[in-house]
């Protein structure tokens, strides 16, 4: 039986508020996690060798234009043009400079160009939905794109993901590697979404949501959002929710 949203929401409610600033890897409302989460807690160790560093990326890897998702084709993509910007910091609040940030997202209609995406919403011939940049000396990143639409998925009946942009980041040490998703303020789908709700601490969840920033918005051009990212890397707690 494919569960309903109500059943999933009940499961979400029963797990909410538990401690844990990271997602629970064992999170039954996200059905695909069932066979893909480790049952043992992570083993804590002191990093050594390459773990104390990160790979180096430079201008050879990323071009200036790679951060503008609206100029990759002949025409302009449809949708709400916007800037997403912020700073990448480490767990001590220091700027992560010159590091790689990768993003990917659905188009304004909620459709990915990925061939596995079967959502019957239109593809946009002027939008691929991938971008890269290197952070500046102050840790800043900046992408120009269009606002992605929400999209359906098959976790349960009538399941919809809130609009989001996928982010992949590197810090100054291997453990700061972060793959995450950025959300938009005020989305009514937040409480229904098992992926966002897998972060059961509400304060931690809020750190995944960008802020509308009128100082980023540009007159007669586009809206602006700000989202700072903290690569805390070595976290002081062990894994939560290992299912035992």
């Amino acid at each position, binding site marked *: 039986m494919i569960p309903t949203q109500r059943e999933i929401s009940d499961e979400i409610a029963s797990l909410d508020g538990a401690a844990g*600033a*990271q*997602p*629970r*890897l064992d999170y039954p409302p*996200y059905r*695909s*996690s069932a*066979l*893909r*989460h*480790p*049952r*043992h807690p*992570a*083993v*804590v*160790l*002191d*990093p050594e*060798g*390459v773990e*104390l*560093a*990160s*790979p*180096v*990326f430079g*201008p*050879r*890897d990323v071009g200036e234009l790679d951060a503008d998702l609206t100029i990759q084709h002949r025409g302009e993509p449809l949708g709400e043009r916007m800037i997403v910007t912020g700073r990448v*910091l480490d*767990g001590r*609040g220091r700027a992560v400079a010159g590091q*790689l940030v*990768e993003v*990917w997202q*659905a188009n304004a209609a909620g459709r990915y160009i*990925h061939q*596995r*995406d079967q959502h019957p919403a239109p593809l946009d011939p002027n939008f691929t*939905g991938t971008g890269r940049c290197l952070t500046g000396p102050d840790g800043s990143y900046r992408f120009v794109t269009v606002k992605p639409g929400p999209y359906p998925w098959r976790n349960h009946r009538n399941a919809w993901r809130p609009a989001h942009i*996928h982010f992949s980041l590197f810090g100054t040490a*291997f*453990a700061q*590697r*972060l*793959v*995450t*998703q950025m959300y938009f303020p005020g989305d009514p789908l937040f409480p229904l979404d098992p992926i966002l709700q*897998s972060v059961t601490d509400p*304060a*931690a969840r809020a*750190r*995944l949501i960008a802020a509308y920033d009128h100082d980023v918005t540009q007159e007669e051009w586009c809206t602006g959002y700000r989202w700072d990212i*903290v690569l*805390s*890397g*070595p*976290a002081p707690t062990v894994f939560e929710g290992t299912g035992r």
Partner: protein
Amino acid sequence: MSGPEGTPGQTVGPFFGYALPYPGGDTLVPPGRDGAIRLAGRVVDGAGAGVPDALVEVWQAGPTGAVVREPGSLRRDGWSFTGWGRAATDPTGAYSFTTLRPAPAVAGGPAWFAVAVVARGLLDRLLTRVYLPDDPDALAGDRLLSSLPDGRRSTLIARPGPDGYRFDVVLQGDRETVFLQHRPGHPG
């Protein structure tokens, strides 16, 4: 904790295939190069099935054991060894890298790859180490390996394989890979 609170991870989801993998990502050195080896295996779920929508990343020392500080992983020039690579799994869950054998970071210690894994269904990235099996004394003296129960230690040690090494990432189950969490308070 005095610094800002960390941003949580989220699953890489199903649709990264057109965004994160890139040509040459799994080829840290060309296969024909002197000293080239293969590091290959599968990402496997709790039912023993291959995970076809996973991404494996390696980060490693080169033949000197030193940390590599060379850009160019995303647009390889065929000569520079950057120490970092990325491979998506195929429909059977298999991944493969062509690379160089990492030297130990400290003389007499074991050699290992640092590995990160993401996948659909996996809500945060996982980190682990892949130890080379060649020097039993070095493995026996390793702090992490010595701290593990007998049944789990071997999950971190690669097996000799065709042209190099085999290593399966087992996300769950009897042979579940040991995943790691780095202790805070270190520089970097």
